[in-house]
């Protein structure tokens, strides 16, 4: 009914220019809406199909001004060392994060972002000053390195463990290994990440403990085969 009368109406308009003006004037909201929906639909489809949803490894380098983010030298050396297929999953190095649990974190948005990454299971590892990391461990958001999941890390690096004493809600104190000291690692010597003693912790909900282990091997082994290989 409606389509027919509209068709007749439009056919009755003399010039093509006026037809376009008529259609635009009466249906501009619809036209804009449809164009927007089509454009957005394409965008959403494109993002959904092309963007990688999974990570090989998601690291946070907190409290450093060194360039350690995505596509930095550290990032490229590590992905090459680990031999990750970057078309399959992504490697994210997040180097803009500034918080210190020792100094209080209430209202610090960087800390909130850390919590979001840690509690959603995205985060795999985090580095910061040794004492701050031990303090952060008190929140229970770092993995106990003496647990089963970290057995092979413990076998290699247990002499480097950093411990924290966390008082839990029922009053008992938990003594847990939450960090691995990396003060003498290449992260400090070669990539100049930290000036103070620093340590690496693994996120409690991480699924990629092996990737973090690879990262540890990468920054801690003296073996220079990687450099030879790239030459």
């Amino acid at each position: 009914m409606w389509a027919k009368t509209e068709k007749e109406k439009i056919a009755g308009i003399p010039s093509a220019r006026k037809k376009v003006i008529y259609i635009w004037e009466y249906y501009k909201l619809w036209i804009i809406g449809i164009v927007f929906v089509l454009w957005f639909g394409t965008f959403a489809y494109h993002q959904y199909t092309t963007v990688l949803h999974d990570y090989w490894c998601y690291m946070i380098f907190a409290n450093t001004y060194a360039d350690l983010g995505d596509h930095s030298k550290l990032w490229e050396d590590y992905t090459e060392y680990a031999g990750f297929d970057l078309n399959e999953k992504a490697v994210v190095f997040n180097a803009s994060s500034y918080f210190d649990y020792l100094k209080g974190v209430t209202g610090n948005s960087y800390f909130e972002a850390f919590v979001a990454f840690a509690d959603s299971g995205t985060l795999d590892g985090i580095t910061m000053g040794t004492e701050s990391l031990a303090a952060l461990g008190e929140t229970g958001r770092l993995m106990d390195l003496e647990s089963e999941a970290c057995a092979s890390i413990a076998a290699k690096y247990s002499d480097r463990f950093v411990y924290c004493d966390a008082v839990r809600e029922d009053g008992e104190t938990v003594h847990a290994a939450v960090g691995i000291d990396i003060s003498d690692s290449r992260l400090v010597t070669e990539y100049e990440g930290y000036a103070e003693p620093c340590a690496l912790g693994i996120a409690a909900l991480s699924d990629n403990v092996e990737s973090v282990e690879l990262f540890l091997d990468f920054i801690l082994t003296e073996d220079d085969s990687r450099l030879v290989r790239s030459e």
Partner: protein
Amino acid sequence: MKEKRKMTAKEKNEAIWAYAFVAPTIIGLIVLNFYPAINTFWQSFFKTGDFGKGNTFVGLANYQKAFADPEIWQSLINTIKYAIIEVPLGVVIALILAVFLNRKLKGTSLFRTIFFLPMVCAPAAVAMVWKWLYNQQFGLFNNILHTNVAWISDPKIAWISVGIIGVWSIIGYNMVLFISGLQEIPGDYYEAAEIDGATGIRQFFDITVPLLSPTTFFIVQTRVIGALTIFDLMFMVMDKTNTALTKVESAVYVFYKYTFDQGNKGYGAAIVMILVVFIMIVTVIMQRAEKKFVFYN
């Protein structure tokens, strides 16, 4: 008992339009807000696992603990005290300013912009200024008043000091809403009143107050909810070591402390649920009152 009857075709048509109109909002709210909220509700029955150990189901233990925790009760009282300062003062001052700025005066748009500025200021600047004003030794207040008051570390008055910052930062916000409400009052009412020789104050009480009552109710309702979920003011000027903190910290602050700072999500979730139920009770009472005090033409 509600009378059940079949809808007429016209009513059916209206309902279909209405569902189409509310659908985007309701679907969005369910996906973006209620799904996470239900997650949180579910979490409140668990003890959060630390260091990668899984959560354990504890039933109502978190709630039992929260109800027995004097800190929670104190924080609820603190929140109510804060709301009692912020809501009435914020609303009344903003209303007066909005009425002034709605007159044909020179420079109103400049004043409107100035009153809006506190809302866009960097929180760090706001915190620094207030800390300076309240400083016991060097602070402006103590210097002007020749007193030696510990404005933000004396538990007896710290809640008032924080409340004042709350009022200060909310005035611009309420004012924008009041101005928009005032715009919707037809000008002819005032013209008629002017011919009758009614003074400004008479006009205010006879025309502005009743015709603005839907806007006022809206502001009061949203501000009560806003004040009861207040959070950022508490850490803005008060350090963690401040002895008055326990007499000022709001319920959301306590929730935040457990969930974020300490990673105790299960307990934090229980606190939020208690708070939401409390605000719901307050809201139901207010919605009842709406029918009595609000005038719709």
